[in-house]
């Protein structure tokens, strides 16, 4: 049952992923943002849903990744260096060759992910002493601090931001290229998490969510699991931040640290779809994005009200989100049933008889 459902879902998402931009070329970048939001929601859920640590600061890694990749892309192939580039405030437009551009971009994305990962390990040494609302507010503080620190550093353009290197190619190829990157990262994150949740790691973070003191008392080395969970989220957020910066073409504090939009959206999407499940964040992100794009197009000026309404209905009536509601309603579809065979041996012989 679940297996065939899975195949249908993957099929549908695969068709959307591959044929979406071919059938609707005008919406390529919009669908790219959809995959980006799927990634953000899925990686947020690792801590927020599966582990019960509501981080409002994952957007920090997005911004840091964006800036790290800008530094890497510019400083390795522009002789003047990063300082000269940013102090010219966008008047310098270095001509990178195709090879230079793409090599710089790939290196930038990898470095962005790694720096974000290292940063998350440093943060985790003091952040995971906090629980509940203290962790949420503490992590929000990290994001705000990172944003404020960024604008004081002239090396990365301070408050006036950085113009990213120009994409060598026409505008359609540019959209398709960044679309593919977003899609691949979302797919990679999904399958990595899918595998992780099927291992002991998945159970350990669930145990931390349900009763961290009990988990400690049972000898689970909780800090290691928390670090791995946040590290994975940070790595992907760093990578996708690097991609997003290049998609935007120009980065500054607002683009890199969209705390009130993406920072909150990723939480809202997970709550909508159902936290602590593999598919909830994906479903939530898709629904949320579709509603957002539709209201932005047809209900302009009312779009925030529409989004707010959805959030309120979600929080008041469907706190467990769509997946959680389905599990409550149809537990047998999720395998939550009493087994009539009372013993392991009974179950085995029944299985053999079948």
């Amino acid at each position: 049952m679940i297996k065939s459902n899975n195949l249908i879902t993957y099929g549908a998402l695969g068709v959307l992923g591959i044929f979406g931009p071919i059938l609707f070329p005008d919406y390529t970048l919009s669908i790219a943002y959809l995959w980006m939001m799927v990634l953000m929601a899925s990686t947020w859920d690792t801590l927020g849903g599966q582990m019960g640590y509501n981080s409002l600061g994952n957007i920090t890694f997005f911004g840091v990744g964006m800036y790290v990749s800008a530094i890497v892309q510019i400083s390795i192939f522009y002789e003047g260096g990063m300082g000269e580039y940013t102090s010219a405030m966008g008047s310098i437009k270095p001509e990178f060759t195709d090879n230079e551009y793409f090599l710089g971009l790939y290196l930038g994305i990898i470095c962005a992910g790694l720096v974000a990962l290292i940063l998350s390990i440093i943060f985790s040494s003091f952040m995971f002493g906090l629980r509940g609302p203290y962790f949420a507010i503490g992590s929000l503080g990290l994001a705000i601090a990172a944003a404020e620190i960024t604008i004081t550093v002239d090396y990365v353009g301070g408050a006036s931001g950085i113009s990213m290197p120009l994409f060598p190619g026409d505008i359609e190829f540019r959209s398709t290229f960044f679309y593919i990157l977003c899609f691949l990262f979302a797919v990679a994150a999904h399958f990595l998490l899918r595998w992780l949740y099927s291992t002991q790691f998945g159970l350990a973070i669930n145990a931390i969510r349900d009763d961290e003191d009990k988990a400690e008392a049972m000898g689970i080395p909780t800090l290691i699991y928390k670090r791995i969970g946040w590290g994975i989220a940070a790595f992907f957020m760093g990578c996708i931040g690097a991609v997003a910066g290049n998609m935007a073409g120009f980065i500054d504090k607002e683009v890199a640290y969209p705390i009130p939009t993406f920072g909150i959206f990723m939480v809202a999407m997970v709550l909508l779809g159902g936290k602590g499940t593999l598919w909830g964040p994906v479903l939530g992100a898709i629904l949320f994005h579709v509603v957002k794009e539709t209201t932005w197009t047809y209900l302009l000026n009312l779009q925030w009200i529409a989004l707010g309404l959805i959030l309120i209905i979600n929080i008041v009536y469907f706190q467990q989100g769509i997946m959680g509601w389905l599990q409550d309603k149809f537990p047998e579809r999720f395998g939550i049933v009493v087994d009539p065979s009372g013993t392991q041996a009974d179950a085995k012989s029944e299985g053999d008889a079948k």
Partner: protein
Amino acid sequence: MSDPIIEVKNVSKSYGGVKANVDITMKVERGSITGIIGPNGCGKTTLFNSIVGYHPIDTGSISFDGDEISKLRVGDIARLGMLRTFQQTRIYNKMDCVDNMQISVSHRPDSKVSVFASRKGEIRERAEHLLEFVGLYSKRNLISGDLSFGQQKLLELAMALMNEPKALLLDEPTAGINPTLINGLIDRLRRANEELGITLCVIEHNMRVIMNLASHIYCLSNGQMLAEGKPSELQNDQRVIDAYLGGH
């Protein structure tokens, strides 16, 4: 011949003005079942908490399997091989029973189960076997928080056994469990002790249970060690009768 696995020496612990434990000395012999009894508020659970590192003790020393553990924290002590169950049963209540069991495997350095180990095969087999041992096999796919209190208690015991600890401290294992199930539980505790070689230390108010189960019993009163001895000795000890058992 004495071979204690847990040794508590002159341990004191107070909360503000309350002296919960005063100069407690006791030991639990390897492979034994040891009981702790005493009136409510006499410091039994505080003593458990001190032993497993839940809070720092004021004075004294505690050793486990030869190592001084009074400065270690809960997780470190658990990874040495000593676990406790809680008076207020604690399980992972949003996970199903099998998952509760599978994550309870040993996390000691010699454990074969790693962070990224799969949840199929041997580990699942053992989880289901132990669920059958406590009579929860048919409920194994249910969310554990939906089980009855007694069943949760049994699940918590099974989780502790899944960990294969060297010593297990049980805080009122039979509280809230119906009489027929209590007999089964005593039987299971004894089998865990004999077949799996787990040393047990049990806090219990049910005299029938503890007198049957334990080979050696300590009685606390007002935070102090009142008496110790074999069950038959304690039953006839006038101090214990006055403080706890009461006259007939």
